[in-house]
């Protein structure tokens, strides 16, 4: 479980869609960059098909690999403002992606989302 930093504002973003179907994941990345500029800590909760976002070794031919972009944000988030990422274990197990999540993504569950929701200033679900 990752505990948020109470000194800064926190935004939890719950994502449920996988990459490449639409722009949703890229919108999430844009929001994360904007949050970094404004000093807002971002928590990513990747749920359902969104657990594929951080799956390693993606090699799309016509799109930037979303795992690389997402991983960069999470790794940079180790410094302040933080960016944490949790992938739902039931979702990753179901999709066979539990052991291949990019660096910085923690395997967790809905109890973690509950805690993030309680401690965040705002929680949104991008669908």
């Amino acid at each position, binding site marked *: 479980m990752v505990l948020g930093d109470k000194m800064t504002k926190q935004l939890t973003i719950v994502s449920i869609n996988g990459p490449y179907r639409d722009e949703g994941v890229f919108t999430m990345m844009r929001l994360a960059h904007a949050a970094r500029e404004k000093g807002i800590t971002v928590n990513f909760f990747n749920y359902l098909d969104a657990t594929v976002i951080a799956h390693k070794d993606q090699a799309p031919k016509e799109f930037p690999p979303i795992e690389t972009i997402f991983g960069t944000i999470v790794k940079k988030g180790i410094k302040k403002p933080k960016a944490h990422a949790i992938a739902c274990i039931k979702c990753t197990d179901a999709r066979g992606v539990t052991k291949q999540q990019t660096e910085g993504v923690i395997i967790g569950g809905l109890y973690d989302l509950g805690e993030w929701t309680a401690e965040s200033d*705002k929680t*949104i679900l991008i*669908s």
Partner: protein
Amino acid sequence: MTNLLLVLSKDPYTTETPDLVLDIGLNAKEKGNDVSLYLIEDGVTAARKSEFGNKLAAAHKKGIKIYADDKAVLSRSLTNKLIGWVEVKEIGTLLDFIMDYDRVVWF
């Protein structure tokens, strides 16, 4: 009074979601709430000068503020093709709204 932010990411011709969003916004406005509609991704096509664009214009006259994401507008070549009451904003504005509004619903 509650500040309600509705974020619409779907176009108005594939599903009934945009109509639902507009109905929610209008009902919330009628009940005295402050309502903003933020169009993003394919949602910006809803504000084209069209039948649905006319619905948005009518909603604006009833007090609903309408915003559109700059990159979504630009990438679809919709600059200068939207109804007149739409304010085009960058992603930082959406983030500010998300953090500041009482309620945020993403469609």
